[in-house]
Structures are given as structure tokens and as C-alpha cells.
């Protein structure tokens, strides 16, 4: 997103913020870090799906700070449909011990602070969070956002060069991991997915960084 446009939106959001407790979301961030996050949900439609878990990890330069990570399980307000259980392996009994959604989001927001956000098809995850945030705080996540699938797409197109461009880039998560030669992902959960996404991000960022020789 355009920097000026982003700045304007931020300024606008800040005025709309209902709870001054969360002004830190709009504070300039001096940590040099980014936060990669992923959500598990009970469906694929943000309007109807419920948030079941959030996994997040901080990134600093070429390092993924797994020592500072966030793994939150959320107690859903409605029953989880059976097909979502199959995907997430989050059964009702697993999420029953989870946090109320606002408590979880509070922890998440404090973890993220003013840092930029990174994710894979991040739009969906941000929409999921914003669905709860908007009625509560009057704003959605104001942080800058980077989608690794878009980064990967740009890189692939750039590498292929104009004449080899076929218009299709395989953006499936497993395909990207494989193409970048990253280790197999382990269990399919929010934190692990966030971690893998962070690996993709770090690799793409580092590869693009000029070498100092």
C-alpha cells in the first residue's frame, strides 16, 4: 500500500478508536520487528466463521524469534462444525479450555503492537480479526500488511522474465515451501503455519537483500 495513503488511513483510524488503551496500535514502531500470524477458524467465510486459535511469531532481520511466540486457543461462542474439526484437529473439547475471544485478542494486540503484519493470504486472517475488532474498538488492524503469497508471486514473475511468463504461479502453501526448499511443515496448527510463513518471508526478504562483500 502507498505510504501516504497508509498514513492517512492510520490517522483516520486513530480518531475512530473507541478505547484509548489501544493507542499503541497506532504508535510508530521502533522495534525493527514484524509479526507473522495465522488463525484457525471454523469456516472459510469470515462473516460466519469463528476464530478458534491464533498463532504468531516475531521476526527480526534474518531471525525468527520462536522464543517469543504466541499460541492462543479461543473458546468459540457457537458449536464448531464437523468439517472444520477435520481440518484443524481442534475438537470442541480442545477449544473448550480456550480463552474468551476478547481476552485472546487483547493478548494478541499487545503482542503485535505497532509492528507490521506478515501472513499467507493475510487478508483472510485480518478480516477474521477485524470482524471482532470493529464492533469492539471501532477500528480494524491498522498495521502495515505483507502477504507472502504476493511477495512470492512477484519474485517468480521477475525471475521467469517477460518471455517465460505463463500467467500462472502455483501459490499453494506446500508448493511455495517446496519450491523455496524449506523444510517440511510439521503439524497443521496456527503457530506452526505462522512459523512456516515466517520462514518464507525471511527467505524472500534475505534473498532480495543486496550482498555486502
Amino acid at each position, binding site marked *: 500500500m502507498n505510504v501516504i495513503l497508509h498514513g492517512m488511513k492510520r490517522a483516520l483510524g486513530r480518531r475512530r478508536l473507541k478505547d484509548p488503551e489501544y493507542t499503541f496500535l497506532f504508535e510508530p514502531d521502533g522495534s525493527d520487528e514484524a509479526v507473522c500470524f495465522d488463525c484457525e477458524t471454523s469456516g472459510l467465510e469470515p462473516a460466519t466463521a469463528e476464530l478458534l486459535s491464533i498463532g504468531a511469531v516475531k521476526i527480526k532481520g534474518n531471525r525468527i524469534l520462536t*522464543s517469543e511466540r504466541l499460541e492462543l486457543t479461543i473458546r468459540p461462542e457457537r458449536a464448531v462444525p464437523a468439517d472444520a474439526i477435520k481440518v484443524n484437529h481442534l475438537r470442541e473439547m480442545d477449544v473448550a479450555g480456550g480463552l474468551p475471544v476478547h481476552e485472546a485478542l487483547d493478548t494478541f494486540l499487545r503482542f503485535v503492537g505497532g509492528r507490521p503484519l506478515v501472513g499467507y493470504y493475510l487478508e483472510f486472517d485480518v478480516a477474521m480479526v477485524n470482524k471482532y475488532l470493529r464492533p469492539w474498538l471501532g477500528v480494524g488492524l491498522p498495521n502495515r500488511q505483507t502477504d507472502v503469497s504476493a511477495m512470492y508471486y512477484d519474485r517468480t514473475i521477475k525471475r521467469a522474465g517477460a518471455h517465460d511468463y505463463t500467467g500462472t504461479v502455483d501459490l499453494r502453501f506446500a508448493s511455495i515451501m517446496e519450491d523455496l526448499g524449506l523444510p517440511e511443515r510439521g*503439524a497443521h496448527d496456527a503457530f506452526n503455519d505462522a512459523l512456516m510463513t515466517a520462514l518464507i518471508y525471511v527467505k524472500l526478504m534475505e534473498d532480495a537483500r543486496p550482498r555486502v562483500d
Partner: protein
Amino acid sequence: MPKMFDSSVPPFDRLRPREREAVVDALDIAYFRSGDVIIAADQKPDHLYVIIKGHAVERDPDEEIVNTFSAKDAFDTMALIKDEAPANRFEAAEEVIAYMLPRKVFLTLVADNADFERFYFQSLTERLEAQAQLASNRGMASFMIARVDEAYLHPPITAPAELTLREAARLMKQKRATSLLVTGFDGRLGVLSGTDIREAVLIDEQPLDMRIGDAATFDIHTIDAEDFLFNAQILMTRHGVKRLPVMKDGRVHGVLELIDLLSFMSSHSHLVTTQVDRAQTIEDLRRAADGMVPLVTALHGSGVKIRHVTELVTALNRKIFAKLFEFLAPPEIRDHACLIVMGSEGRGEQILRTDQDNALILRDGHGIRPELIAGFCGNFNRALLAFDYPPCKGNMMVTNPEWVRTVSEYGDALHRWINVPSEFGHLNLAAFTDSAYVAGDPALLAQIRDSLFRRLTDNQAFFSFFARPVTMFDTPIGLFHQLRTDRHAQAGELDIKKGGIFPIVHGIRAMALEKHVQDTNTFQRIEELARIGELEREFAQNLSDAFAFLLDLRLKGRLERQATGSEDGDNFIQTRTLHKLQRDVLKDSLLIVKEFKAKVSHRYKLAAFS
């Protein structure tokens, strides 16, 4: 917590559950591009790195690779334990993803968990032992890599060409010298030895007032004072001379006598050479040839570089072949034919007596009776068999009429082999590319090689086809840089020829053929290709080192097999009998082979075929 962390890997398997948790909680993950420095030299590291994926190397201040690390390996434990900056640098040899365990957590584990601590101190001992071993190997080898000027050099005694033989003999007696350096009438440097005087006077019945300028040898070889003593020995062996003027700053610095060289390094090589030289019968020659295996074993055992071993073995083999030719060839054949060796013998990379790969080139219109030629070829082949040189499996021998032809017949054959691509034809071309002169008229071989180079100039299509086998066999390094060994063949053994030696030899051969490099030895070809800019200098050095290491491992395997009397699997090495240092260097060497294959593949556009 990161699910990828495998706490079953030593030494983390020695941790108690709570300690494991503490480790996992403290881990970060870092990504390094190939070439990125992970721990700089002289920088106290704050973390222990445990590789998840990729390949890292440790380089000493001379840029030598001293250790390599792959998945699940950890470094630099010693720097953390000793709390000092490592003298070496750790860098990613290819993309590395690694866990970072904070120093404080690591040290707490070392302090609290005796098992964990012992793991490192055990390895430290092993490491020290390995280092001591290396040092002693170097110590053993040092007498072989001594410089020429470390041996006793006779002061140079120069005499003018006008001196008479009698005066020269007096001068030598007075100076207690065994030879004189003679400045020739044309200013060239020559050597006059006692033997020269004796032969001139007693055998050729020359007068005692003959001028030494007419009796001295002027076509002499010299050696630089900085050169290896071992090279002096090779030079003496190859040319059958007993002394070499030693040059320093372009001037004669002294004279190296064979006897002094031998007293400096009491190796067997001279004994074998002398035996070959003195052989009067084929039986004498056979006995000399028998001395080769103990010689190679001794040289290898004393840590002499493989390249020097092969050079010496080559010089000896050629001498034996030439002497046998001298014994067996009738005068017509000596005058009108050229005996050549091909394949590894031609490249000078034979380490023990392996297959006979030889051929005879006849002059066009030689007029020698076919029975005479066939008779000679049969005798030559039988004699070599009796010397334990096994026959060539591909039947590239003088007993095969395909390999006894005239210059123009070979020319026609070359034409066919080049223009009708077939595996057979390319095999023959490869053999010819590597051919070297043994005896007879060297001009005959030179003519054929010239025409081979000429025919192939700018024939890119030929080279893409010719170079293809370079990528035919997999180089056995897996994704995680664990050594991959052939699952179907001998378990735990690695085919070092297919995976490493062959791709280097053949790729370099193709480049040498393309660029008209006259050398046949792979090391020399690599050097020449680097000199003319076809290979980057640094890469050429790495490739040479990798090649030497692979040959060395193969020789080691063969000597071990010979000792146990086992015959099979000549090219297989037992990966589990290698210690870590060797395994690491092997991995490294194979990585370089892989890189080389990629370069060849790109150069000749081989990817288009597969």
C-alpha cells in the same frame, strides 16, 4: 513450540524433560543465504547453532575448510564452552536454516547435566586426537614435501667448454666433485659427469685432450631451489638422470645428486627405477614391476600427496612399457610405429597396476609384414599379463586389430566416431583424447591428436553429445547433505567413481578437447583450463583438491582390499569406516563435483537433452 526441533538427536537426547522444554522455549530460528557469515572469526558467539537444513563450513584464517556441518550438527560448542572467540569463521556453504540456542541456556545445561557435558568433552578429546593424527601425518609427509634446497646441494663448479677431459678429471679430483657444470660453446649450460669422461675415453676411444664442450650433456633438466624434492625425484626417474642443476633467481645455485636425494628420503622409488633401468631380461623387468605395489603402499602410508604418487607410478609404468617395447619390438616396428597408452594410464592417473589400455600407431605405407606386427603385439600383451597388468575389459589393446592401425586409418576412424555419435565411438574418442606416448616415433601420435583437435573445432553439437555422460550418474549427496549411498548395491558403500571421479575426469576431458589442451593428466588439464580462463582459478583449485581427495580415498580402499585379498568392488568405499573428518571432506568434495557438473551442464547445454 517449534514442532521441528528433534530432541532425540545427541546430545539433546540426554536432557531431562524439563531441560528439553527450557531448550525449546529459548530457541530462535535464523536463515542464512549461501555465503553469509554465521559466526565471524574473533567474535564471541552468543548462540549455539544447530542446523535444521543446509550446509555450513568452518574456515581457518587461511581460508581452508576445516570442518563441515549439516542437518542436526551443532557449532561452535568449543567457543561457547571456553568462552572465547573462535579463530575460525563459520559460514553458510549453501542456504542454512538453523536453531539458535542462547549461550546462557547452553552453558546452564553443560553445568547441570553431566551426561550432556560429557558429550562435548568426549568429542573434544576425539577432536584433539584427530588433530594430533593429522599433525603426525603431516610430520611423516614433511620429508616428502621438503624443498630442494633443504637437501645437500653440491656447490656448482663451472668449467669452460675449452677445457680438456684430462684437465676436467683433475679439477674434479681436486674439488672432490662428481660432475662439472659446463658453459657450452654456444653459452648453453651443460653437465659433465665422471660417466661422460669414462665413456668418451674408454668406450668411444676419444683422446684425453678432447674438449669437454664436445663430451658434456647439454640437453639437461634443471629444477628450482624452491621446488619439492619429490619433484626432483620424479624428474630424475622420468629422464633417468642422476643429477640436476638447481636454479635460484635464474642462476645455478648448486647441484642435486641422486644419492643425496636418496639419503634425504629413503624411499623405495629409486630402487624400482634402478631395477627397471638395469633390467637385461623380461624376467628382470617383471621383478621390478613387482616392486610397485609396496612402493605405492609405502608412499601412501607416509602421507605423500596422491598427485605425486600417481606421477611417480606413471613415470615408472611408462618406463616399464618402454623397456618392454625395446626388448620385444623388431627394428622395423621401432622405426615405423608408436606405442601409446590410453585411458587412466594415458592421463597418468594410474595408482596401481590396472588395466592395459594400449594401442599401436603405424606410419602410412610402413610395409611391415602383418605377421611381424601381430607377433610383436601378442608378445607384448603376454608379457604385460605376466607382469600382472590385467587385460583391458573394453579390449583396447594392441592384440585387437582395431587398435593397431596406420595414421590415416585412425584418421578415418576418428571421422566416423565424431560424425556418427555412438557410445562406442565416444568411448574411443575419450581414450584417444587421453592417449600418451610410450615408445617409438612420437610424431605419429602428434599427427593424430592434431587432426582430432582440428576436426572438433567449433563443433558445439558434438560437445553437447560428448559431455552428456558427465551428468549421467547421481552425485551421492542428498538434500540434507548426508552421504547417499547406493541402496541396491553394497549397503553402506559409495561408488566413488561414478559419483565423483568420472564426472570430473570426463567433464575436464571434454573441456580440454574443446580448448585443444595438450595435457592428458586431469590435474594438469585443470591448471591449463584455469590459465586460459576457462575455469575460475579458485574453483579450479577446489576441483583439483576434491579430485585428489577422491583418488586418495579410492587408493586407500584398494590398498585395504589388496591387504585382505578381496578383489571386488574396486570403486566402492565404505562410508562407515571413514572418520568424521574424512566424511566431512568427502561431503565437501562431492559438493564441488556437483557444482562442476552444473557448470559443465550449462556450458554444453546438457539440460536440453534430459
